[in-house]
């Protein structure tokens, strides 16, 4: 719909186009009112008061015919992300016991024998622990991570540090199970699978709020 843009250099150099410019300004102002509906095409950038940051699309074809259509297998090869609702989790399962073995072999060097010794990020902490007076409060799985799916996603894509992306799904499920157990979120006999991971409630979930800073006088 209203995707007209101002060609600002024309405005500056060709005074005859001033009228057209003013009309476009009006369109831009109107377009700004319902930007959220305008998802199919480019949206005006910034306001007409800042024409430097706009892009003139008036002469554009419907499509530039640049690039190629992605095939299913090409997408599948890269589409590794996991959503909080569990979408994207591969088939598989893991146990706390197996997870502990893998953890000790591949993770403990950086994160410590029980997930608190470091030297890298502490992984284990309890939300209920009343205070960390005098010590830095760790941001660990049990007191800071809002979604269990994030554990799978992150371990799967980025860990272990010296061999990222090398773990099989069952190994990742097992590590996830073990870390959830160490954080007192699941029981020792829990079997974590692609069907139940997204249902696991994380202690810190209720702490998260969306950013409400909006500029203006108030410091937030």
């Amino acid at each position: 719909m209203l995707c007209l843009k101002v060609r600002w250099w024309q405005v500056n150099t060709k005074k005859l186009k001033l009228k057209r410019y003013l009309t476009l300004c009006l369109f831009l102002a109107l377009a700004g009112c319902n930007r959220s509906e305008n998802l199919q095409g480019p949206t005006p950038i910034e306001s007409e008061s800042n024409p430097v940051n706009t892009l003139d699309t008036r002469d554009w074809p419907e499509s530039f015919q640049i690039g190629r259509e992605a095939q299913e297998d090409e997408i599948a090869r890269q589409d590794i992300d996991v959503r909080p609702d569990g979408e994207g989790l591969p088939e598989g399962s893991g146990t706390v016991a197996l997870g502990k073995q893998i953890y000790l072999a591949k993770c403990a060097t950086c994160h410590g024998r029980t997930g608190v010794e470091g030297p890298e990020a502490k992984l284990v902490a309890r939300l209920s622990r009343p205070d960390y007076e005098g010590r830095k409060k760790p941001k660990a799985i049990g007191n800071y991570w809002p979604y269990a799916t994030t554990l799978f996603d992150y371990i799967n894509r980025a860990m272990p540090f010296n061999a990222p992306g090398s773990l099989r799904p069952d190994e990742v499920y097992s590590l996830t199970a073990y870390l959830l157990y160490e954080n007192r979120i699941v029981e020792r006999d829990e079997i974590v699978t692609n069907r139940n991971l997204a249902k696991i409630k994380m202690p810190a979930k209720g702490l998260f709020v969306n950013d409400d800073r909006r500029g203006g006088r108030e410091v937030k």
Partner: protein
Amino acid sequence: MGIKSEETKNETNHALAKISRRKLLLGGAATAAVALVKSSFGEIQTAIPESLYIPADPTKVQGPPPFDLGTRSPFERPLKKTSDTSSRTPLQDLYGTITPADLHYERHHGGVPTIDPEKYELLIHGMVEKPMIFTLADLKRFPAFSRICFLECSGNFRTGKEEMMPQEIAGLTSQSEWTGVMLSTLFREVGIKSKASWFLAEGSDAAVMTRSIPLQKGLQDGMIVYAQNGEAIRPQQGYPARLFLPGWEGNTSVKWIRRIEVSDQPYMTREETSKYTEGIKGGKIRQFSFDMDARSIITYPAYPVILQQGWVEIRGIAWTGRGKIVKVEVSTDAGKTWNSAKLQGPVMDKAHTYFRYLWNWRGDETEILSRAIDETGYIQPTMKQLMEARGRDMGGYHLNPITAWRIKRDGTVLFRPEGKA
């Protein structure tokens, strides 16, 4: 005949050039001397090659001819300060607002990957009409767009001791002219489905770093950039292509971008849940804190400068992720009174803005401070204001407090550390 003698002359020049370059490179590597060098901000100690030929009178001897790649003067050695995962821009050594690409700050989560531009591809899929793959050559064929903007890490604050340079306090901000293709241009090609509201941006580093971005930001001013300050973007900044989101915390501008998945919800990745979120009042944790609030810092005079009595031009940079800087105020009496600094135009949207304030220092002990005001009316807060607003569990992200420099009677300039270390 004439041509030949010209050739001979050129050969002689090249021979001379080779000798002087050998002297400079080999001699320089063999021995180095510490010399006092006059710079615009007084005498500085610098290591220069002992054998570097400095003629007594440069008008009486031919200088070296052109070279195929420029170099800094051997008298200038601005350097980043590095850690295992970051490097900081030497703000105190820079003039104006553009950061030389080799001094741009870095913050990586899996090191700097080496990517063959011939093999590079960007996949856009998910809630789109037609999932597509674009090569680097493809991206460069689309209508291009350039824009000068700052990029700042939201963890850009350090404190703790008096002997800290601007680089150490706030060196995780840099500014470049970025060139690339608007995301809206690419989204137009793939056709975004009407129910879509977010997209996932994924890098091809060892962390396969991911962030969820509201679709509206991508449509509004998001870019896929492949160039920085007129040349191909540097590996440390995302070669061959990165996402660039003006005014937003640096982490969201995913480097080495390989994939965009359009969705109707955020993915809650590690970087947007357990990292890049900050504790606020009531034990709450703030998430998706994208915008960088207004901030400024005086970069001269600042530690380690020794100030001389008399006229001083106080200089610094101010910036905001929410639009333009409209005013920078400077106090030379420890915050009792504030005066407007001069802003160097053109003042650009979401860009470092250079400010200057002329001051006659009479040798009294004092503190100098600056505060930025942006077009939303936001006034850069003090650390005290930030702590009051966010509570005692205040996190380490999005800290933009007023920076104060103490000037001692002997001209020593020291950082006034406050707040959380």
